[in-house]
């Protein structure tokens, strides 16, 4: 249920603007990989190329390859829609569908493929997904209430439930806690620790402590200045990165002495 991703020499463009340059990295299955780096260095941009969400913005393109278990995601015969079903995504701001109930939100992705899912299967899936995202106990009595009525942290966990309901291989998270209070953040962090049993997880975060707490490996991105492309500076085991990074820039950033 979890797959490895290999990125080779990836350049990412917005139109003519080279936003991220020459990234090569391997993302291990059943582990949490954190991306850190200053704002604008291309963390989100890079993350979004991993499930071809990048393409949604007109005029964008990539060079290089992103392989999942040896299959190039950008190769011929690969359907971006299918890619996104294999590689799920959770966004910075919780975004449950406002017109749907909690239950419908969880099933939103499943219903796209399997319209005629039986009632009991659906109920099982809702329960397992919500349990998986540690939300079941809080919402089991109000599954038919609008998802937008939950608190921010609950909404974010609902989005995670929605993402794992379609049983992806990989889960990408772009600053999933930055809009949440500390308690909700803690809940999400705990959840991530559980989810990595089953999924390959990639998380972007601004919060160094968070990266240190949740991730197994950490990648540090940096940017030389506005208009310059972002680059992967260094990637290593999290403990190594935070105790003895190879690069000076990494150390500066982690210790808050940056800039």
């Amino acid at each position, binding site marked *: 249920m979890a797959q490895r991703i290999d990125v080779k020499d990836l350049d990412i463009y917005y139109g003519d603007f080279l936003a991220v340059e020459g990234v090569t990295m391997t993302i291990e299955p059943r582990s949490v990989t954190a991306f850190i780096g200053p704002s604008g260095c291309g963390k989100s941009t890079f993350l979004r190329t991993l499930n071809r*969400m990048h393409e949604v913005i007109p005029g964008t393109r990539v060079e290089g390859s992103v392989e999942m278990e040896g299959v190039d995601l950008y190769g011929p015969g690969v359907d971006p829609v299918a890619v996104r*079903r294999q590689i*799920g995504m959770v966004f910075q701001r919780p975004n449950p569908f*406002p017109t749907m109930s909690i239950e419908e939100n969880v099933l*939103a992705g499943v219903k796209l493929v399997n319209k005629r899912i039986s009632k009991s299967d659906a109920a099982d899936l809702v329960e397992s997904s919500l349990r998986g995202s540690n939300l079941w106990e809080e919402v089991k009595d109000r599954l038919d*209430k609008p998802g937008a009525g939950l608190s921010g942290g609950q909404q974010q966990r609902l989005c995670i439930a929605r993402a794992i309901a379609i049983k992806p291989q990989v889960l990408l998270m772009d600053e999933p806690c930055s809009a949440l209070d500390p308690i909700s953040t803690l809940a999400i962090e705990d959840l991530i620790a559980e989810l990595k049993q089953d999924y390959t997880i990639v998380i972007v975060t601004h919060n160094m402590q968070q990266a240190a707490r949740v991730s197994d490996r950490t990648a540090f991105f940096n940017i030389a200045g506005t208009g310059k492309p972002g680059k992967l500076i260094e990637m290593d085991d999290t403990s190594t990165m935070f105790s003895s990074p190879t690069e000076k820039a990494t150390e500066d950033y982690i210790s808050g002495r940056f800039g």
Partner: protein
Amino acid sequence: MSTTAPPTGKARSRSASGRAGDRGMNRIFRLVSTWSGALILATLAAVAIFLVLEAWPAISLGGEELGEQISWFPEDTSIITFVGPLIFGTLLAAFLALILATPLAVGVALFISHYAPRRLAQALGYLVDLLAAIPSVVYGLWGILAFAPIVYPVWNGIAETLGWFPLFEGPAADPPRVMATVAVVLAVMILPIITAVCREVFLQTPKLHEEAALALGATRWELVKTAVLPFARSGIISGAMLGLGRALGETMAVLMILSPGFLYSFAIFQAGQQQTIAANIAAQQPEAPPLGVSALIATGLALFVITMAVNMAARAVVARRKDFSGAN
């Protein structure tokens, strides 16, 4: 800046109360805008009172008397039976137009917001806004001089093949000065209006939700279906209501195109079957004796009430699923 704060709180609080001038302006501004709101109520009350007063002679008099004094007033009927077919015709025209225009408008709006290349979409946006502002008399002119002359074969074809259906009962009238033609022209007229509203709403679909759908592996159509359309539901309804409102009240286009009749008839390909309230007022008002004008205004009152009811119904529909609306 020269006003350094006074050192003690006492002095400061005095200077604070010295700002009574601002309070005065605040008050005046609030009152003026409140009065404006009240003025609208007054205007509307004036219109309503005027309508009722002017319509009263016709409403209060018996049908016999009306029939005697107004040549076109059907004999042995009351004002209710007189206005009935007109309401029927008005609703028929407006709903046909709405049924034709709304799906098309949603399609066009989706095309502009989610399908067309961006450059083209922007140009099309301008075009649609422009078309929404074309005066109805021009639509009337086009309808009668350009559209009606060519549409007879189509109506005839439909009437011959689908004539068993009450709506399409033949024989199709030639020239086609019939409800079907009116409905199409009205639909063409309200299409840009509905499109403009829908497009705005579609464009406002939060990126957040669109991306959520895409990240779940939705195709473009599924994206539209899960994120865009539910979000835009109330917007589509209000756009349609705006269009419906215009179709209900449209005068000139109907006046110029339709062969009127005063029947409860669904036959939209036959001439002389239906008439709308607004067009009837415009047609009969010039020659009408005072009591006739009064009867016409009574029909205007009915139109007013219909539009009001339609508006309220639309609000109710929009409000019912407010919890689930995307507006928060």
